[in-house]
């Protein structure tokens, strides 16, 4: 049975509220959770589409988690979907930070905060590594795609080339390779 629009919007809101409420380490740390909730559990969109959402989120300015939320919400339920996902992902932060800002003043340099933060970062490094392989398996299907991925990794990690430039180059390479190959293929048919 198809869900009503209101039920779908409510579900999107709750899903992104959960993502906003439980990820520590920022937008990048949310990617594994977004993948798990939206692709694996709810099956709203495919693995390829979630990678598209990350590509758009990273090549535009703004908060990555909000950008991905808006893209995914818009893809699933239009403008209304984008509004509920954006509010869903923002609201938990807003409530928690407001409470902290009212109650505490100093935490930096606190030894326990630093230990917990190091633990979170190591854990996030682990779950992101797993996400890389899972998404890579569905997106990297030929040698050309593998070469693009390795090049992009080197350029962004060690040479500090801007993400926007690498994405534009990836688009151009994809166009030249896949589109022109397809046209040639049609010619010889």
């Amino acid at each position, binding site marked *: 049975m198809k869900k009503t629009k209101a039920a779908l919007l409510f579900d999107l809101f709750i899903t992104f509220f959960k993502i906003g409420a439980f990820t520590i380490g*920022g937008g990048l740390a949310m990617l594994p959770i977004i993948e798990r909730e939206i692709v694996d559990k709810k099956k709203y969109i495919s693995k390829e589409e979630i990678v598209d959402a990350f590509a758009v989120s990273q090549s535009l300015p703004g908060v990555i988690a909000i950008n991905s939320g808006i893209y995914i919400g818009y893809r699933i339920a239009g403008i209304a979907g984008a509004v509920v996902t*954006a509010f869903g992902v923002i609201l938990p932060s807003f409530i928690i930070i407001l409470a902290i800002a009212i109650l505490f003043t100093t935490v930096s340099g606190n030894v326990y905060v630093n230990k917990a*933060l190091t633990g979170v970062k190591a854990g996030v490094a682990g779950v992101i590594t797993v996400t890389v392989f899972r998404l890579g398996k569905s997106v990297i299907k030929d040698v050309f795609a593998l070469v693009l991925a390795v090049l992009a990794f080197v350029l962004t990690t060690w040479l500090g080339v801007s993400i926007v430039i690498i994405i534009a180059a990836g688009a151009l390479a994809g166009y030249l390779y896949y589109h022109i190959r397809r046209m040639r293929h049609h010619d010889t048919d």
Partner: protein
Amino acid sequence: MILIELFLVFAKIGLIGFGGGYSILTIIQRELTQRGWIGIQEFSDIAAISQITPGPIAVNAATYVGYRIGGFWGSVVATLGVSVPSFVLVILVAHFILKFKTSSVVESCMKGIRPVTVAFIASAAIFFALESFINLQAPLLVNWGPFVIFVGAILAAVFTKIHVILIVLIAMCAGLILC
């Protein structure tokens, strides 16, 4: 009026802030200390709080700074300000991509963009590894506590059904003991 100024400053940050939370923190610091709204020490508190609490780092920072400068409504306008540019830009781009998804040109471009994006996610993993257990000055001296947490998180994500959220929470608790 301070609320309007707060909104505009954070809208500007949302518009020029590429690269997600950690790079946006730097921009927030520059914009706010230039205006004399907060000092360096207070900013490092904000940075620490934003990273240790759940949610997007830049949103956390916006809410916190907004509250400090303009009270409750300050936090509302700062948070909305940092999100509004995303809203317009992402919907425009999403609309375009979804509309022309079936065109061979757009599909070919997306096929080139997807592997590149996976590489960015891999680069994010390296970033978190550098922040926790790899030291570039002495690459052979792995920091063992966080490294054990890293390997444990990978094993848990691959071989168990433990939810990602729980894995990160466990990593946080393990950090208190091992790091």
